[in-house]
């Protein structure tokens, strides 16, 4: 990572977060909504932009790796895929549809004053704290169900990875050009300051590549959520929090020019704190400022009771599922898939299944 000084890391992540928050708010780039609408309305319009973000990240990550700008070709928090990745993905997928947003879209919405998103966020923190209670039971399950003894496709076959990258980018380029000719990239929306989702996709890919180069690995955020929860738990029940395995472990450890860098969910200042907390704050601040500038910030009060319950339960499932799988849609969809890390593909498949189930639950029990 190029930014070795902690204040440079913090400033970079804060700025990247602010740009991201503003861009996502303006285009309403919500991954949960994309999958839900595909199942609920057979509307795939925004999934195209997500595909663009993934493929463009693939191109930019590859270029950065080939030019020697990347320090960790395997981001240190990726592990071999296991049944835990699958189970976590399903739980996460159900959660994000019920909550009406994923770990990132919930942030830009709450920054715009949406109460349901605030409740979903509280659910996410609660869900990750709940997971901390069962983490000791989950660890052996995870270790015992490893599906492939490798983290990345390049661990098994570097040529295969190169081939897959070229193939994926090639096929996507043909598809993307066809969509361009059919005029499928531009959306008609009437919101003030609307940003075309494909532009948001480009911004995401560029920012995530910058993060990979400057800050060490692609963006991730949910360990930071658990950390926020851990600080709260430490205030309320310090003795209990001090004894939790999840808070005493590192989810990330690497060696950088001879010195170790570590980070985890525990209530302490480490690499996770210095990268994910500023990113989190940046997204909220960026989205809030954008909402104010567009004169849209306003708290409308509580949605119907069923939706409130749905947001809270969905949030808890998101928080719990993200820790089961040790990552969220941001890490896996936009980080692991472009890098051909096995966890990414498994998580996405499971998340899509979960989103399908979530869409069924939603239309049957929540919106009536």
């Amino acid at each position: 990572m190029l930014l070795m000084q902690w204040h440079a890391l913090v400033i970079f992540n804060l700025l990247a977060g602010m740009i991201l928050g503003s861009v996502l708010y303006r285009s309403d780039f919500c991954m949960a909504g994309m999958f839900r609408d595909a199942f609920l309305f057979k509307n795939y319009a925004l999934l195209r932009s997500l595909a663009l973000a993934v493929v463009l990240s693939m191109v930019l990550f590859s270029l950065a790796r080939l030019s020697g700008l990347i320090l960790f070709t395997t981001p240190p928090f990726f592990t071999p895929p296991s049944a835990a990745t699958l189970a976590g993905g399903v739980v996460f997928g159900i959660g994000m549809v019920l909550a009406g947003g994923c770990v990132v879209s919930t942030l830009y919405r709450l920054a715009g004053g949406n109460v349901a998103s605030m409740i979903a966020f509280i659910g996410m923190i609660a869900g990750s704290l709940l997971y901390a209670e069962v983490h000791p039971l989950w660890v052996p399950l995870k270790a015992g169900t490893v599906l492939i003894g490798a983290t990345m496709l390049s661990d098994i076959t570097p040529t295969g990875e190169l081939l897959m990258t070229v193939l994926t980018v090639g096929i996507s380029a043909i598809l993307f050009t066809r969509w361009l000719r059919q005029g499928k990239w531009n959306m008609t929306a009437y919101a003030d300051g609307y940003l075309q989702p494909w532009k948001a996709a480009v911004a995401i890919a560029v920012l995530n590549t910058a993060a990979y180069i400057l800050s060490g690995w692609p963006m991730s955020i949910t360990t930071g959520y658990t950390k926020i929860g851990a600080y709260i738990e430490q205030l309320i029940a310090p003795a209990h929090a001090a004894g939790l395995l999840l808070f005493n472990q590192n989810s990330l450890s690497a060696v950088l020019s001879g010195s170790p860098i570590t980070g985890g969910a525990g209530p302490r200042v480490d690499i996770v704190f210095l990268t994910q907390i500023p990113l989190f704050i940046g997204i909220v601040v960026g989205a809030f400022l954008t909402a104010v500038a567009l004169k849209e910030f306003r708290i409308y009060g509580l949605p119907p009771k069923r939706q409130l319950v749905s947001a809270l339960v969905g949030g808890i499932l998101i928080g719990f599922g993200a820790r089961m799988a040790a990552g969220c849609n941001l890490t896996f969809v936009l980080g692991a898939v472009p890098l051909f890390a096995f966890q990414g593909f498994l998580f996405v498949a499971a998340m899509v299944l979960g989103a399908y189930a979530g869409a069924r639950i939603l239309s049957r029990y929540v919106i009536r």
Partner: protein
Amino acid sequence: MENKDRIELNILGQVCPACLLVALREINTHCRKLKQGDAELTVRTDHRDATRTIPDTARAMGYDVEVRKVDSYYEIRVGARK
């Protein structure tokens, strides 16, 4: 315009898929009056993506749609095609 029924739907602050689902249900309930121009549906929403999904869907169903910003939210009007 003057002696039309005005159907109002306020979904400010609702969780997101609610917007399109509830709007669709409302359109379908009043579909005859709306199609004949005897009624006009006004949806109030703060959800930015709904300013894409509701007009898109309603237009595909053969209605005329107008969107304007009021205060800090959006007002989507759905009525008969002229």
